[in-house]
């Protein structure tokens, strides 16, 4: 066992760090620092910058536009990326559907979609969840019926993040209602401009619009947009979920946000002094920081097992549970650091409309916005309860 990176790895780390620092636009960093979602145009432009550098898709195979980095290098890149404070790249195309297409897609599909994903020309959204199918995703009912060269899709998706921006959706649909649930699901790529699609906003408890409902009314989808085989969609969906391993623990993002929390605690006054001088508050930061150190150590240990070729089972679930809990703890404590201003909040639209802002310290608004949004961290991508069920089933039985 040793913890040293090779000198090549260290040189690589320097290169990554300086490139990101020099190229991340200040406005993008500022929103990310505050805890606000990136603006669409900003994140697209930033992704295009990364693409030009050749770093947009470290996990992709070289022949499809990946970097060819070692697992260690990928780890270093991810870490440096989030320690810069950069917002996460939009995962739907790059981390989710892209790998599905290059792994299971036809040559025609690869030619048609992969370049646009790498270049961030097309915005994808994820059409999995339905009103009746959340944790129990396999019970989904949105129906696709083959009719000539098309599928005709009817049904509804919900909680579709950023569908309002999306050009395309990768969608799980039911193609056979008469077999075991998992065996009648197909994976379709759907053009969001197709007639019969309606996107309705859902406003979150942060007062912001990231979620949507998507309705399908006799939407015709060319059969060539089917991924792989009909009724094999569940396999591809599971493959996709397994692809999240690298960022699932969000260690470096949390490290960065912990640093921000300390800055807030240094800025916040308490009487003649500052909040950071309060031993009790520092202990609470320390508690989270030690949790985070253990999480980082776990992540590294699993990485080393991965490198050694050991097959991991439910370990990503362990990382997801603790990663989400720690991210929430940081956000909760950041809002608590605001003292009485930790009660104050209005949505970004309202805030930018007033001419007497900000409300309280300027970092207060985003801290609350992110705190509210991050309540979802233990819900999306498989709830923490479901992750625990997975660990119990795969490791402890």
């Amino acid at each position, binding site marked *: 066992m040793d913890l040293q990176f090779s000198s090549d790895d260290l040189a690589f780390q320097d290169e990554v760090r300086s490139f990101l620092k020099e190229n991340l636009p200040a406005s993008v960093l500022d929103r990310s620092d505050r805890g606000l979602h990136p603006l669409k145009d900003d994140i697209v432009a930033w992704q295009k910058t990364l693409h030009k550098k050749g770093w947009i898709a470290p996990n992709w195979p070289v022949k499809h536009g990946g970097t060819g980095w070692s697992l260690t290098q990928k780890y270093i890149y991810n870490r440096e990326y989030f320690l810069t404070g950069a917002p996460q790249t939009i995962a739907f195309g790059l981390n989710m559907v892209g790998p599905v297409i290059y792994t299971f897609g036809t040559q025609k599909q690869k030619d048609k979609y992969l370049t646009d994903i790498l270049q961030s020309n097309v915005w994808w959204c994820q059409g999995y969840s339905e009103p009746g199918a959340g944790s129990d995703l396999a019970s989904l009912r949105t129906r696709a019926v083959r009719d000539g060269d098309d599928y005709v899709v009817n049904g509804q998706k919900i909680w579709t993040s950023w569908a309002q921006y999306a050009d395309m959706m990768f969608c799980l649909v039911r193609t056979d209602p008469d077999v075991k649930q998992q065996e009648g699901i197909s994976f379709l790529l759907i053009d969001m401009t197709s007639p019969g699609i309606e996107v309705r906003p859902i406003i979150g408890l942060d007062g912001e619009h990231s*979620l949507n409902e998507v309705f399908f009314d006799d939407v015709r989808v060319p059969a060539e947009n089917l991924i792989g085989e009909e009724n094999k969609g569940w396999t591809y969906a599971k493959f996709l979920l397994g692809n999240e391993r690298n960022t699932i623990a969000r260690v470096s993002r949390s490290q960065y946000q912990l640093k921000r929390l300390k800055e807030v605690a240094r800025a916040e006054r308490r009487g003649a002094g500052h909040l950071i001088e309060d031993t009790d508050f520092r202990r609470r930061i320390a508690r989270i920081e030690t949790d985070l150190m253990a999480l980082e150590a776990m992540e590294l240990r699993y990485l080393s097992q991965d490198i050694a070729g050991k097959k991991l089972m439910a370990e990503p679930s362990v990382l997801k549970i603790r990663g989400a809990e720690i991210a929430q703890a940081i956000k909760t404590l950041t809002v608590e650091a605001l003292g009485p201003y930790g009660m104050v909040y209005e949505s970004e639209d309202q805030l930018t409309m007033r001419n007497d802002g900000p409300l309280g310290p300027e970092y207060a608004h985003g801290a609350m916005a992110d705190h509210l949004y991050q309540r979802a961290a233990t819900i999306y991508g498989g709830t923490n309860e479901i992750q625990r069920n997975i660990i119990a089933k795969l490791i402890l039985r």
Partner: protein
Amino acid sequence: MNFELSGEQQMLKDSVERFVQDNYEFAKRKDLAGSALGYSDSHWAVFAEMGWLMLPFAEENGGLGGSAVDMGVVTEALGAGMTLEPLVPSVLLGGKLVEALGGAAQKDNILSAVAGGQLKLALAYGEPHARFDLNYVEATAVKSGNKYVLNGRKSVVLQAASADKIVVIARTSGDAADTSGISAFLIDADTTGLLKQDYPMVDGQRASDLWLQDVQAELLGAEGAAFAALQSVIDGAICAVCSEAVGAMGRVLEMTKDYTATRNQFGKAISDNQVVQHRLVDMFTVLEESKAITDMTTMRLAEGAQNTSALVSAMKAKVGEAARFVGAQGVQLHGGIGMTDEYPIGHYFKRLMAIDVMFGDSAHHLNRYAEGIATGANS
């Protein structure tokens, strides 16, 4: 010893619950929270008519002489509906401080109008540098003739936007952290030199930051001696909001129990999973603790116990933590729908979080209690 309500208290509870049921359907609350005023003046008139605004004032001041327990009965029922009217700021903060400190003429002029709902008060005590410490007051007051001139900043003043008069805490002598030298003043909300920034809070209630620039003010009580009264008024308000939290947590538990019993995943109700049942039990347990410690503390206050600060801090620390836990688990067990603005559970989460912060969060009160261990005050 008796934790049961009297017949009168039961009637009071029933009447508040009926009001909430008739007027605080969730969609209506949402509209009200989004309106310009942020609450309803016609509801406010009902509060006055029903005597809820009179309840905590002594009979000689035109009140009903109700106890902290009576007030808790009202706010617990209001808390279940997350009502928006400024009962706490106007009556329990502003009104009670005027009652504690004001001279006969001041009380005459103000309290019957507050109790009747015609006059609304707010209490400006917090400051940007004070965090939750009541004694930390930088705003200054200087005597000039028979008036005082106030300067400084006040922050997160509950419901100041619609108040007619504001009770302002400022320093007439001493250093910023001294408990002596703190005085209370009355100002008109539209007085010259007062600048207000009005805004919504995360729970839909309203608050303001104030900038005071040579504002003319009238002294309440003796100069430099307002701290003890301020603290005891805040302690009373803490009891009231803890009762509100109990009411709100009760609703969260009920809604979550109902939701998890009717939401099916994997071919069965979510609450058929033992882990979900245990989570509900944990929520129930902290709710029971909160209800009991709030009732106990409120009774102690009603009995006129001495040194109530430690008791109040113990209660607030427990209830604040419970409020956060119950609110967060309510959201969690609802899944995606818990994250929406359209559905009530997220609003209860935000209200409960605000109650934890209000008048000092659980960490603050735990520390305040711990200080009492060091000094032997609560050995």
